[in-house]
């Protein structure tokens, strides 16, 4: 019975979070980007004394919309509740017809982000973005793209590329995989024409010479990455798969200011910066009215492209 007792203690520790100042909801299963962001926040907040007993809770499901719905309904006016989210949530809210949107929470700040990378297997005869676009124009169906889940950032990137190249976005042959890892295997195994995912997923393979990096979705060249931007390749695209933190709805101005100050303190700390560099995450911190404006612009652009691809009516 020793194990069962141990296990029950363990379970109750998860099921009943102890008293805490900040409870950070990771609206995804353990292991993914949002979960890691939430756990890194927890660690930095604990170590730097911003919130000595910060907790993380996973509420997985449907691109984060389940966690978002639960968060906004249960925490109205609770200044201690935080939720991690990101660009994928913007798309998921639209494709899932989610009754709850980012308007139902109080977005605080963008914390980190990754740019998308377009790659082909090293054995491919496609040498650059122009070559890939030429093939796409010739026969959109013959170019198969491997990437993450349907309607996610990778899918949106492919839709944007087609649109910018003057190809009908509904004609793209996008093969959705259940994650960057599985998609990477398909690209390495030469089963698809090209691959799209966060740069980090491909970096090691590009360095090892098994994948050819054609372009990145950053507004300007990324330091240390030997590839042109999509803009340089004649496609006007600037796409960042960002992650953010939001607070509960219905906060007073003072409460919101307090949360924003805490998050800023965390994001500016040496500890957080070290964590970012260890994990290879970019610091794309953005808060206040600038972040609100950026969020608004992203939602509008995403809605348009998802309509073009045909995922949202």
């Amino acid at each position, binding site marked *: 019975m020793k*194990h*069962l007792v141990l296990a029950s203690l363990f379970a109750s520790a998860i099921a009943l979070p102890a008293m805490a100042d900040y409870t950070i909801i990771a609206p995804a299963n353990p*292991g993914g980007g949002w*979960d890691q962001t939430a756990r890194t926040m*927890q660690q930095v907040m604990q170590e730097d004394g911003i919130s000595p007993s910060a907790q993380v809770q996973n509420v997985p499901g449907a691109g984060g919309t389940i966690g978002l719905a639960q968060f906004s309904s249960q925490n109205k006016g609770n200044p201690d509740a935080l939720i991690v989210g990101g660009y994928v949530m913007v798309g998921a809210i639209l494709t*899932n017809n989610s009754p709850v949107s980012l308007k139902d929470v109080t977005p605080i700040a963008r914390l980190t982000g990754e740019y998308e990378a377009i790659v082909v297997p090293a054995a491919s005869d496609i040498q650059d973005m122009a070559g890939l676009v030429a093939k796409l124009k010739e026969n959109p169906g013959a170019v198969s793209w491997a990437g993450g889940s349907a309607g996610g950032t990778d899918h949106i990137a492919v839709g944007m590329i087609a649109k910018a190249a003057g190809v009908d976005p509904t004609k793209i042959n996008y093969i959705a*995989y259940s994650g960057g890892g599985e998609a*990477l295997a398909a690209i390495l195994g030469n089963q698809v024409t090209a691959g799209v995912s966060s740069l980090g997923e491909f970096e090691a393979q590009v360095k090892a010479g098994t994948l050819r990096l054609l372009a990145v979705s950053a507004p300007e060249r990324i330091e240390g990455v030997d590839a042109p931007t999509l803009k340089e390749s004649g496609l006007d695209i600037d796409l960042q798969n960002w992650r953010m933190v939001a607070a509960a709805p219905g906060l007073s101005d003072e409460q919101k200011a307090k949360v924003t100050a805490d998050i800023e303190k965390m994001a500016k700390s040496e500890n957080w910066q070290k964590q970012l560099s260890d*994990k*290879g995450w970019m610091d794309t911190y953005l808060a206040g009215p600038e972040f609100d404006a950026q969020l608004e612009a992203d939602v509008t652009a995403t809605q348009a492209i998802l309509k073009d691809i045909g995922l949202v009516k």
Partner: protein
Amino acid sequence: MGAFDFLMQGLATAAEPMMLLYALIGVTLGTAVGVLPGIGPALTVALLLPVTYRLDPAGSLIMFAGIYYGGMYGGSTTSILLNTPGESASIITALEGNKMARRGRGGPALATAAIGSFVAGLIATLLLAFLAPSIVQIALKMGPRENFALMVLAFVTVSAALGDSALRGLTSLFLGLALACVGIDQLTGQARLSFGVPELLDGIEVTTMAVAMFAVGEALAIAGTRVQADESVTAVKGSVWMSRKDWARSWKPWLRGTAIGFPIGAMPAGGAEIGTFLSYATEKKLSKHPEEFGNGAIEGVAGPEAANNASAAGTLVPLLTLGLPTSATAAIMLAGFQQFGLQPGPLLFATNPTLVWGLIASLLIANAMLLILNLPLIGLWVKLLTVPKPWLYAGILLFATLGTIGANPSSFELGMLLGFGVLGYVMRLFGYPIAPIVVGLILGPMAEQQLRRALSISQGDWTVLVQSPIAATLLALAALALIVPLILRARGKGQVLTQMAGDED
């Protein structure tokens, strides 16, 4: 330094007293979470990441390794003793293992699971150490069409194992396939059969379903039957240890299970469950005692248990060589690597040999530690069967509920647990087997996605499915597995294909 020197150096590091302590903590925790239905190794490793950050890389890796192998092993204990799989990879173990336990042979069942896991873990870890770069090249050749062919083979062999009363088995299987359609379609992002319920968008969680069907359904069934004076099912008959005959019948399934589980674990679309299904079907085909299948055949425990541990090691092949996490636990281990500034990938073996070999050595130590920890505990575990049934099943219900809530704190999930529990009870009542419904739920979406991906890449050309040699071979095997039993049955040998259907409990 060659691979062997690195391994020896890694073993020397991993054998230091503090490291052994970390390994012990790891395997104990891993076994504990494996035993608890619903809570898996992924969540445990995620919770421990911030803790292990304070340790050195070697210390935290050895703890992860212990949790990983321990979780795989722990699931089998409750499967065998209580007919309650802690993990989806130990569902098959419950079929024969629990039958053995009810006939007083719980000891040998636990022992063959423990030793089989050890043997498989040992061989698979050594394969990982010395052959990983070449295995991954083969694994990468497995594209959507090859994976689809493999799923077809798994379907056919598992359905064939349903035996003569195929109607009930197939009904259960198709119920599972139908339930598998619920949720967002992976390839188009559109919701299917979710009826506007947001909680259904991600589909039905396999562990929730398995725990509901096996644990809750079982508890209801026990509560529903009249109390019998005859409690002999729980008695331990004969030795707690494996007899000479048990050994003779176990060693081949261990090796075959390893041979099946390891490559499937290494495939990007693999997964521990498929290996256990195929291993079970293989053992049933090859057994000299096919009549015992469904009544507690030791081969049916030995093979699948070896397969699930071997596939746990197989999962590390793409993780270490390509940086591809193909399971939730692997994804978190990747995060663990990254917090030490390591990027697993094609260059990891070259740039960080000490750490890679340290991890492999840790896996070997964790594996041995598990055996040492668990063999003496078998005597204690089987005593669990002597706990009065009302207490035992109340406890099972409690843990099933805690596990589900712990993994996903949602009242809807809890409702599903109870709803499917009632379904499991009704199915038991009318003699429908419950394993195929879970099998359908696991295999259905995989097969569908692979087929559609293959056709999407080929732009609708069905002939690609047989154009690759690997896919063609697998499909031919599936066809054989389908036709041969039909011929045998037509020639009056149908009785050797014993039933799995209808008599799981």
